[in-house]
């Protein structure tokens, strides 16, 4: 066991700390921009707002210039161009979180499309899309799920035909967050109807202003974040918008899905929320008594703290396994989405419980605590328990791939 990163990182750590001191509790001028609501909820960005005011796109540029974002993405594609160094990434994440420095922009384009293009894209596609995505100029949405392709995603039926050098696309996508703000969509389309289920899918990039696209909002229970349904009626895009080869879409999508699952429940964000909850319990009272002095509330807090500490320690072990390739963490990575989303939902729910009636307040009620973030995040994480591969699907993955248990036999329906 050795939890030191080594003296070669001292100088780097100091640079990051100095930067973080300057921008501690910084406010992003357009933080209430709906586009980024989901990202802010996930990353636990501060709502204390006592520091410097920074503009969202200038902030992004500064973080790239410093190498605190897009660190290992080549300069020619708009990144910082540094060597991949997982310890430096960890130092950045930890110091930012500790000092409540706002994170860089995230979202589907940055988190999923950029790594996909780096791995599978043509030189032309990389030049065209990565830089503008990193700088927040091109916002992307993800077109994967369909009404009949949820947990069984490979059952998707949106059809693409190659006619005179163009893809002509017809069908429907659902659960498309940020579709209304996006310039582009990356999409899974069935282009090979005669191939097997998984081999018939291609990965295609679609400009959202193409004629034939209709976006209908699908309001979710938070009444804030908002999904969409997206309909395609003879939507025509050039042949070169295909990423990788025809029929490789399933492999392309899978190569970055694992990344999304891990990022849904960042342990640093969970620790920040726990600390906010502890402060809340020290400040709020019932019958003149601090909530933290109510034994049953305090015990529940301590139970959640035990889980948060376990998950934090676990993230150190996962980091270690990336630095030391011989270290076997077996199930370690597979459980993150299941454990992380359930824990966050429980933590946010505890805050609501201990506030009693006050816990029901929402939106802009004058008595609402912490900007209504407890109710919002409580509901939002129920969405994440279901989304990104439901937690029941996660349990299938853990039991089949992690524990080697047999797959459920296929049911043949006789009509």
């Amino acid at each position, binding site marked *: 066991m050795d939890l030191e990163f080594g003296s070669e990182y001292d100088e780097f750590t100091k640079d990051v700390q100095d930067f973080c001191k300057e921008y501690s509790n910084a406010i992003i001028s357009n933080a209430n921009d709906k586009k980024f609501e989901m990202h802010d909820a996930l990353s636990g960005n501060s709502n204390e707002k006592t520091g410097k005011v920074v503009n969202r796109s200038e902030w992004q540029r500064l973080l790239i210039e410093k190498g605190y974002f897009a660190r290992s993405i080549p300069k020619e594609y708009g990144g910082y161009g540094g060597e991949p160094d997982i*310890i430096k990434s960890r130092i950045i994440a930890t110091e930012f979180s500790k000092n409540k420095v706002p994170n860089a922009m995230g979202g589907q384009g940055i988190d999923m499309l950029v790594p996909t293009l780096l791995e599978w894209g043509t030189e032309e596609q990389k030049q065209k899309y990565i830089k503008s995505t990193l700088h927040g100029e091109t916002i992307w949405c993800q077109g994967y799920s369909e009404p009949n392709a949820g947990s069984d995603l490979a059952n998707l039926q949106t059809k693409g035909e190659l006619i005179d050098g163009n893809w002509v696309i017809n069908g429907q996508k659902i659960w498309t967050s940020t579709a209304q703000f996006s310039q582009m969509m990356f999409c899974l389309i069935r282009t090979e109807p005669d191939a097997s289920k998984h081999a018939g899918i291609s990965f295609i990039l679609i400009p959202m202003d193409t004629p034939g696209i209709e976006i209908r909002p699908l309001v979710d229970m938070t009444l804030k974040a908002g999904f969409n349904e997206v309909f395609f009626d003879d939507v025509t895009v050039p042949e070169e918008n295909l990423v990788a080869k025809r029929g490789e879409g399933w492999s392309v999508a899978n190569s970055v899905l694992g990344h999304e699952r891990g990022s849904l429940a960042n342990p640093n964000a969970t620790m920040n929320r726990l600390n906010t909850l502890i402060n809340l319990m020290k400040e709020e009272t019932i019958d003149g008594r601090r909530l933290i002095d109510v034994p049953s509330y305090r*015990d529940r807090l*301590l139970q959640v703290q035990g889980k948060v500490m376990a998950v934090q320690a676990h993230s150190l072990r996962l980091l*270690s396994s990336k630095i030391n390739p011989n270290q076997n963490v077996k199930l370690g990575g597979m*459980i993150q989405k299941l454990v992380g989303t359930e824990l966050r939902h429980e933590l946010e729910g505890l805050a609501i419980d201990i506030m009693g009636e006050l816990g029901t307040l929402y939106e802009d009620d004058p008595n609402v605590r912490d900007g209504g973030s407890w109710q919002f995040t409580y509901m939002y994480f129920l969405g994440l328990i279901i989304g990104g591969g439901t937690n029941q699907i996660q*349990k299938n993955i853990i*039991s089949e791939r992690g524990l080697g248990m*047999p797959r459920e036999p296929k049911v043949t329906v006789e009509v």
Partner: protein
Amino acid sequence: MYFGLSEEQEFFQDNVKKFLADNASIDEIRKIASGEGQDLQSEIFQGIINLGINSLLVPEKYGGLGVGLLHAVAISQALGNGVGPIPFSGSYVMAPLAINLGGSEKQKEELLPKIVSNETRFGIGLSEFVGAREDAGLEIKNNKASGRALFVMDAENSDKIILATKAGVLFFIDSKDKNLTASGLTTVDKTRTFQELILDKVDCEILEESAKDIEIVKKVIDAGRIILAADTLGASESMIEKAVAYSKERKQFNRTIGSFQAVKHMCAEMAADLEPCYSLVWQAAHSFDVDSPIESRLLACQAKSHLSEIGKSVSKKATEVHGGMGFTDLLGLHYWFKRIGLNRQILGAPEIVREEAAEIQGFNQ
């Protein structure tokens, strides 16, 4: 940066696991549990001593291996995994730590080498300091100790026993003292022993440093809690392995039951609950070893209480996956269930330990 057990620690752990697999099968455990396997138990004990578990926490200066608590955690996981029917937490973790932290130089020189040579085996009882039941408690007057101690660990067949006064002063007595009445407690867990002691003016020797600093007894308890958490970790790991293996063999409705989602999801939940526990227990032990007192006490409390909760849930679900067979003595799964159940209660049940964790963080101010 490396977070995990070292190769050496894993090697030692595997040796203990392998030794138990070869020498303490479920039939042998059952025999020992029924009270008829004393010779067998001595053989197993001697075999494990030959692996060197008694020397782990004795500093090199006194002839021991001088390794840290993390090393002992690795061994404790192996013992929990195989429900090892031998003394460990008390005799070879808490006792050497109590002497090393609480003894004078002279006491260390006298006592620690004898743990290494296996001439002296210590039991230890600190329950009254964690929370006294039935008004139990000990006092020292004129160098004689009197009172009652419950749940004294590893005291059966021991040579000496370390105890604590209500004020947290550590002292030891001779297990054969004529003024000492010792009786075995019948707990659900038959793989380890606990005694009730009644002392009536028993000769005792105070561990001198412990009289000056209350921190010492607390630190010994921290270590004990981490080791019990590690035992639960190992026992839970074993129960999951058994449940998964059974589910791949047992057939109903012409299918292995492991292909039913109801069963798979129970196994996945157990695995997902337990996986972060390795990291928590190891970090607690590491923190103890590098001596960061506040952080390490909080981690010790949280490791103990969190593993108590996860162990309880895993031991229930793993038994259920086995169906009716899980409830029988034929498979002997209950030895793991009971071991986990006992670890939960000893040195503070979860609510008590969490309350301590709250105090450490100043939540009560």
